[in-house]
Each structure stands twice: as C-alpha cells, then as structure tokens.
C-alpha cells in the first residue's frame, strides 16, 4: 500500500522538474520512466503486469495472423481476464495470485486498455507509436486512482503542452484542496471524529447511530475519492496535462440518472461509450443498455456478488426514475412532479442505503444493519 505523501512528494520533487527542465524531446519520456521506476520500487509485480498487458493490448493489432475484429477481442479478453483473476471475490477464488495481491491501479488501466483497443479497432485514434501508448499508461498522476483519462486527450496534451504559470497555480490549488478532502475531511472528520461520536451514540440510540453510519460511509468514500481525483488533476496540471473532472457535486443531484453523470464521471462516461451506446445501437432497447451499463459500473469495482447486486440496484433505480418520468409526463394530474429538494433527498438516501451492500463483509451483516435501522 502506498502512502499518498510519497506519490505527491515524488511528483513535486522529481516529475515536475523533469517535465519542464529537461530538453523538450525528453520531457514526456522522463515522466514515464520515472513513473516506471517508482512503480518498480514500490510494487514490482504491478509494474510487470502493467507492462505485459500494455504490450499485449498494443502488439495484438500488429499481428499478421489476426483480423482487426479478432485483435480487438483478444486485446479486450486478455485485459478482462487479468482483471478478473485479481479482482475476483467469488468463492472459487484461490491461487498463487492471492499471495501477490491486486496490482496497483489495475481497474483503471484495464479500462484504459479496453478503451484503446476499441478506439483502435474503430480507427479513431490519431497516429501514435508504442512509446506514446506506454507514456499514456505510465503516467503517475492518473495511473493509480484515475480518472480514466482517454488516449486521444493525452496525445493532444503531449503535443500542445506549454509552460503556463496560471495552470501551475491552479494545479497547486487543486492538490491542496485534494489534500484537505482526503486528510482533513475524510480521515480526520469522517473516519475518526465521526467514528468516535457514533461509537458513543450506539448504546443509547442504535438506530440513529446506524443511520448516521450509513451516511458517513458514503460521505467518506466521496470526499476521499474526490480528494484523490483533485490531487491527480492537480498533479497532471503541474505536468502540463488537462485531465477531465471526475466529480461535480453528486450529492446535489435531483435524480439517480443525474447522480451518475456527476459521480465518478470518467467511469460513467466509459460505461456510456463502451457499454450503453453499443448495446443501444445493437438492440434498440435503452432499458437493457442502462441495466448492462450499471452492472459493468458495479463490477468494475470488484468481480463479486455484492458489487453485482449494487450495480443492479443502481440500474433499477435509474430505470425506475425513467419510468416515473414517462408516467408523470403522460398523467400530470395523477403523478406529482417531485420538488428538487425531495429529489435530492431521495437520490442521496437511495445511494447511501445501496452502499450498505458494499460496506458490509457479508449478506448477514447487511441484513443486520437494516434490522438495527428498523429496531
């Protein structure tokens, strides 16, 4: 496990100077080489896995034996297979890889490689080399905790990046705000202070403590993850790269559909582009495409039953909202239009309550949590 400070100090002391002080043609390669050296030092297996899967997903398209359709299937297949081996929580999961642990950033680079394979198959990528692809994958700010940035955007920034003091200032500000979210709000406030408060509250008011604990888990996950994203975006800006936003005040979303446009935006957009849109084109059934997208979004976190159910719940929530909208439009006198505040309240609670499934270690514990809530 890596300490956040190591990555930030490594970036500030080595990556940023290398990105601007070296001769221009060496700058991007230096970022990638330093990232590879960093990864080799802290997690050699992770570096090896990333290099192997990157090689497989790139060189399969160079094969004279395969047609493009076969190459894209093979590229996606190998990335998904590696991801499933390491991220599986099914009962059959047992083997040498359990001793190795999950390679750092696996879920992120798996989806980056799938994105690359599909776009390369569609021939939408600009001209690039094997080195460009490696530079894209070995980019420390976004490598470990996202956002799932896109290859064409990365290439565009490689070609356009120029020193800009205003951009560096914004980058430093984002890193600072990210730190505040992670260290002050996430770790100190949500995890520790609120944790102590709930422990003290539990004997007298178990239902209230359980309810607040559910809100605390979702709130903590949000501020921590939004904090990582701020730091990643800020560090990218310090290197001259503009990485897309990953959060946009999701807990103010008035419905679940909107919520998933604001929460982990890079993953939602990935699911939209590579699951929802293709399925909609193939089947012309938007409900099926939404359900499949949300299942993939859930399973991205972990290949397990609880994340499958969690993803399915998000899909059902969005489907329900779509049906409600349609019904309300058809019969405005029968079905009331929800006020925005009520929509925000219901969306927030639906999401927080669904997170009980992923918070608890077993289904018995999930049932016990809801039982305590009602007791």
């Amino acid at each position, binding site marked *: 496990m890596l300490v*956040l400070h190591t990555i930030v100090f490594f970036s500030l002391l080595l990556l940023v100077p290398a990105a601007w002080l070296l001769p221009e043609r060496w700058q991007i390669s230096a970022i990638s080489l330093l990232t590879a050296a960093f990864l080799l030092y802290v997690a050699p297996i992770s570096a090896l896995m990333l290099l192997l899967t990157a090689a497989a997903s790139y060189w399969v398209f160079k094969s004279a034996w395969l047609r493009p359709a076969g190459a894209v299937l093979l590229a996606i297949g190998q990335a998904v297979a590696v991801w499933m081996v390491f991220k599986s929580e099914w009962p059959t999961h047992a083997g040498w890889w359990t001793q190795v642990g999950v390679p750092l950033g696996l879920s992120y680079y798996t989806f980056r490689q799938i994105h690359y394979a599909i776009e390369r198959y569609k021939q939408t990528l600009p001209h690039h080399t094997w080195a460009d692809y490696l530079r894209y994958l070995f980019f420390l700010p976004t490598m470990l*905790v*996202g956002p799932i940035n896109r290859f064409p955007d990365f290439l565009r920034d490689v070609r356009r990046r120029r020193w800009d003091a205003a951009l560096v200032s914004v980058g430093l500000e984002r890193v600072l705000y990210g730190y*505040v979210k*992670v260290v002050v709000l996430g*770790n100190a406030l949500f995890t520790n202070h609120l944790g102590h408060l709930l422990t003290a509250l539990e004997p007298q008011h178990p239902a209230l403590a359980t309810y607040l604990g559910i809100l605390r888990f979702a709130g903590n996950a949000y501020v921590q993850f939004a904090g990582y994203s701020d730091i990643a975006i800020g560090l990218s800006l310090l290197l001259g790269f503009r990485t897309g936003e990953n959060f946009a005040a999701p807990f103010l979303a008035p419905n679940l559909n909107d919520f998933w446009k604001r929460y982990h935006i890079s993953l939602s957009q990935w699911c939209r582009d590579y699951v929802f849109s293709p399925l909609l084109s193939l089947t012309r059934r938007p409900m099926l495409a939404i359900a499949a997208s949300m299942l993939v979004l859930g399973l991205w976190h972990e290949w397990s039953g609880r994340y499958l159910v969690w993803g399915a719940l998000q899909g059902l929530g969005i489907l329900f909202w779509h049906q409600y909208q349609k019904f309300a439009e058809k019969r405005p006198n029968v079905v009331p239009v929800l006020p925005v505040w009520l929509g925000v309240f219901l969306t927030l609670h639906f999401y927080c309550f669904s997170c009980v499934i992923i918070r608890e270690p077993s289904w018995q514990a999930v049932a016990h949590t809801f039982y305590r809530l009602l007791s």
Partner: protein
Amino acid sequence: MYSILSRYLPGRVAGTLTAFWYVFLALLVLYYAFLPSGQFRYAHW
C-alpha cells in the same frame, strides 16, 4: 479562490486573503497529516 475574491475586493486585498487561505489550509493539512487520525493510504481499486 483569488478569482472569486477579486470580483468583490481590490486585487491586493484579494491576493493577501487568498495567500492566508492557502496557508491556513496547508497548516490544517500538516496538522492532521502527522496525526495518526489523518494518516492516509491509497485505496486498492
């Protein structure tokens, strides 16, 4: 922060307040980062 403050305040005042704001946040982070309660490790996604 500066862009927001400079809409309502003279540039120099906005700049000074922004600098204080950053120092305050940095001290807050440093205070918590070195306490066990503020220690942070990357989640394993």
